[in-house]
């Protein structure tokens, strides 16, 4: 007997078993490949049934085009936008959200509005979005991991929503929280990130015309893996600012502690503006790979939206804006 004492740390304790076991799927796949004919059956992507909530959503009516849309760019395919997601609530890998997000029930859904505002309360999602006309906004989306997409969002200007709730002068920031529901968002049963996911904007950023709360893409309701039923889109910032499946909006007088900043404060800050001149401590932000393209392309300051948003940050140290 060589090893008498069991190790203090067992595999089962450090890795959620379901996640660990699911990693074996590639072996099934690989075995399938090896035996040729059987491959089509064994592979995870062959004839995969589209789980409800993760495929095409309901068609949205009366969506008007917005002059604020980005033009002259090839729009990323629906399949790419809905199969390649960072949404840790459903797991740490890009393919996890599409696979697991069917568990989420985005309807009925309630949104709590609280903090320094004249109007507060709990609102059903339909009631919440009903007063506004839906707009299509085509925006570039630049992930902090140096890839990007062009996404035809459908949403509502955030400034219009904020106006409805009449924040008081004490409201300096808006804080957004993702729903907390480990039964429907299995990643929340792990301690990968502190839950629920938190993001925030300074009030003037939130009031910028480019900021929207999106409820759809490709003129359909949002698939769950893209943040159904409602999510933030701020195209001049790295993608992680775009908090998904929002359940709470707070008008606050402090700078919200956004999740990635809490996780790794030396790598992620509050502002997270896209800036090719300020590298991530571990990788370059100078270029990006547009999904669907082979060659890298140069990353633009403020993700190409400098004309609309650079004035928000005049006089601030650009190094502090990551």
């Amino acid at each position, binding site marked *: 007997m*060589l*090893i008498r004492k069991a*190790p203090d*740390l067992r*595999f089962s304790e*450090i*890795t*959620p078993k379901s*996640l*660990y076991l699911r*990693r074996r799927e*590639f072996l099934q*796949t*690989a*075995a399938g*490949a*090896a035996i040729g004919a059987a*491959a089509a059956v064994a*592979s*995870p*992507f*062959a004839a*995969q049934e589209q789980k409800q909530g993760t495929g095409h959503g309901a068609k949205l009516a009366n969506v008007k085009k917005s002059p604020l849309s980005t033009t002259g760019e090839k729009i990323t*395919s629906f*399949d*790419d936008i809905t*199969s*390649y997601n*960072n949404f*840790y609530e459903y797991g*740490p*890998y*890009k*393919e996890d959200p599409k696979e697991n997000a069917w568990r989420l029930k985005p309807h009925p859904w309630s949104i709590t509005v609280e903090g320094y505002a004249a109007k507060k309360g709990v609102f059903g999602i339909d009631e919440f979005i009903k007063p506004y006309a839906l707009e299509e906004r085509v925006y570039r989306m630049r992930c*902090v*991991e140096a*890839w990007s997409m062009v996404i035809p969002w459908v949403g509502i200007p955030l400034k219009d929503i904020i106006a409805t709730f009449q924040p008081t002068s004490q409201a300096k920031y808006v804080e957004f929280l993702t729903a907390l529901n480990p039964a429907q968002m299995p990643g929340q049963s792990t301690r*990968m*990130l502190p839950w629920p996911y938190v993001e925030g904007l300074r009030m003037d950023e939130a009031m910028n015309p480019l900021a929207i709360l999106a409820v759809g893409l490709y003129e359909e309701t949002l698939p769950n893996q893209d943040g159904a039923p409602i999510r933030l889109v701020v195209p001049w910032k790295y993608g992680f600012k775009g908090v998904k499946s929002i359940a709470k909006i707070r008008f606050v007088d402090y700078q919200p502690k956004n999740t990635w900043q809490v*996780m790794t404060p030396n790598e992620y800050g509050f502002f997270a503006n896209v800036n090719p001149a300020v*590298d991530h401590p*571990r*990788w*370059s932000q100078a*270029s990006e*790979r547009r*999904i*669907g393209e*082979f*060659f*890298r392309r140069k990353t633009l300051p403020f993700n190409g939206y400098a004309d609309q948003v650079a004035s928000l940050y005049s006089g601030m140290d650009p190094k502090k804006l990551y």
Partner: protein
Amino acid sequence: MKPIVLLKRVIFAAALIPAAALVYYAVQFFYYGEQDALTANPIEFITHFTGDWAIRFLIITLAVTPIRRITGWNPVIQLRRMLGLFSFFYATLHFLTWFVLDWFFDFRQMAEDVAMRPFITLGMATFLMLLALAVTSTQKSIRRLGRRWTQLHRLIYVAAGTALIHFWLARKTVVPQFQVLLVAAVLLLGFRAWWALRTRTHAGSSGRALRAAR
């Protein structure tokens, strides 16, 4: 056929499955337009896939000696070189993915990457170590280098460490697979330390016993 020869052939064939799977995915992706086969970001997928297998085979290689010591089945050592070379094989594919697909021979950017980004520096260092071990893995090298061969091939411990740090730094967060590999590496290297200590203590006490008997 001796069991070890059969085992070696089976493992050889099994070790090629990931490479075959990658080819299969690529055919699905490019020929049949099956977009999920290589994901929306094929270059990232191939980078992770080949890197994952390089590091898995590195850890598997480290398991051979402990298995030999625990089971006492010495022929198992004949698998070690082959497994190590498979780690090098996947590491080479991983390196080429970065070199050709990711940067497409953009030497200036690659040089900057290696110089500026610790995780790339470590990845490159790991690859060069594995390269040195692979080219000196022949019988001829073993004969020619003698004792120095053993010393040189202890580099695999360093390579395991740098490979794990490289993996850890490359991701935005700690992925479950990293934890599994880390624990495996700690156990396998820990076993060696424990074994070395044990044999040394045994040698020491038997030496004392010998002196006392005198």
